[in-house]
């Protein structure tokens, strides 16, 4: 039985409304399928050491024991100090785009200058456990050589998908350093990555100096 024009318009409106309702504010996960393999998890920050197949496609990462960290420099200008302004600034001395780019598709990059790419992968030929988890932990404070400290809780972070620059559905989108947080759940035989950026903000005045501290991303299975 043919629909009347009114019914047709109502049906179309309903479909449009359903389509709008189904749109999530979060984008789909920026993840890639990995080949099944013996149980393994991997984690990388910035430029990882990748392994490739014969066609030159990244299929995993290997241990990078040469240098175990990348420095993110939150240098505050005097203006920022005096106005107690929040600052988001990352100086990354890595000259190659790979520090910010996805090696899994080689076209998408985190914004250069103030973000860092972070990725985690989980492979398992067995169906259990189904997922790996990713956590972010940090000590209580950054310290300078003279023993002064700035709490890590003065630094907040945000993560977002490299392709849309919006929150990734697989990762929590923001948090504060100084505690251990669960960031993401990575399904079996996938690798997922996000861009991280950090913001320092504090109403307190701190002694002049260079404060350093290390945060740790960890991927693990239950």
């Amino acid at each position, binding site marked *: 039985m043919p629909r009347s024009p009114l019914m047709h318009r109502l049906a179309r409106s309903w479909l449009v409304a359903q389509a709008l309702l189904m749109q999530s504010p979060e984008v789909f996960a920026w993840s890639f399928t990995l080949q099944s393999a013996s149980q393994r998890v991997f984690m990388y*920050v910035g430029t990882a050491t990748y392994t490739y197949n014969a066609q030159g496609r990244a299929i995993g990462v290997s241990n990078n024991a040469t240098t175990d*960290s990348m420095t993110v*420099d939150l*240098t*505050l200008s005097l203006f920022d100090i005096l106005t107690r302004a929040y600052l988001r600034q990352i100086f990354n001395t890595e000259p190659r785009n790979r*520090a910010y780019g996805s090696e899994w598709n080689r076209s998408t990059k985190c914004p250069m200058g103030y973000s860092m790419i972070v990725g985690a992968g989980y492979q398992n030929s067995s169906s259990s456990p189904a997922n790996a988890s990713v956590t972010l932990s940090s000590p209580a404070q950054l310290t300078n050589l003279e023993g002064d400290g700035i709490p890590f809780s003065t630094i907040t972070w945000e993560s977002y998908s490299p392709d849309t620059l919006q929150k990734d559905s697989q990762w929590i989108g923001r948090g504060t350093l100084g505690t251990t947080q669960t960031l993401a759940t990575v399904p079996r035989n996938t690798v997922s990555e996000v861009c991280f950026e950090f913001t320092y903000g504090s109403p307190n005045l701190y002694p002049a100096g260079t404060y350093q501290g*290390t*945060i740790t991303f*960890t991927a*693990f299975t239950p």
Partner: protein
Amino acid sequence: MNRPTWKAFAWALIACITTPSALAESKIVTGTATTSGAAAKLNLKIVIPEFIALKVGSGAILTNNTAVDEITLAVPEADASNDTTIASSPVAVQLVSNVGSVSFSSSGDALTSDTETIALSRISVNSSNSALPHPGFGATATPLAPSAGTKVINASTNWIFNYHHQGSTAPVGAGTFTTQITYTVAKP
């Protein structure tokens, strides 16, 4: 062997020399070690620059303000020939710095009116906060210790200027006597 090959070799060599090694950590673990996990670290660094900010009088601290306040100590006509003390209204002073102990000093010439002078020693200053006293005029700089932690000073006070008029014991000619005092805070 032809030249392009040598060129290619040279460029490859240069590339090898100038291409930095990977700077960030990647880690993979297998088997039962996956329960303890693969960890990759990131170093964070915050650089706080040194600064000293001083405010004497009106206006906001932490901004450069070139306006100079003026205080007036007027001797009533009835006391012109008496020894008396004239007090100013409070002058707000604030010091904020993060460089550790600092030295605080003041300098200025005697007050003058034509050829008449009044020595600065005729003026004393009371401070409402002992942590931020008035430095003696032309005297050795006063050391100030951090008020918070090891390097931060954040202190406020009100100064009252007192002019000790000696109309009876050491009179001066009538007139309007002026001078300008400069206050300086420095990292020793």
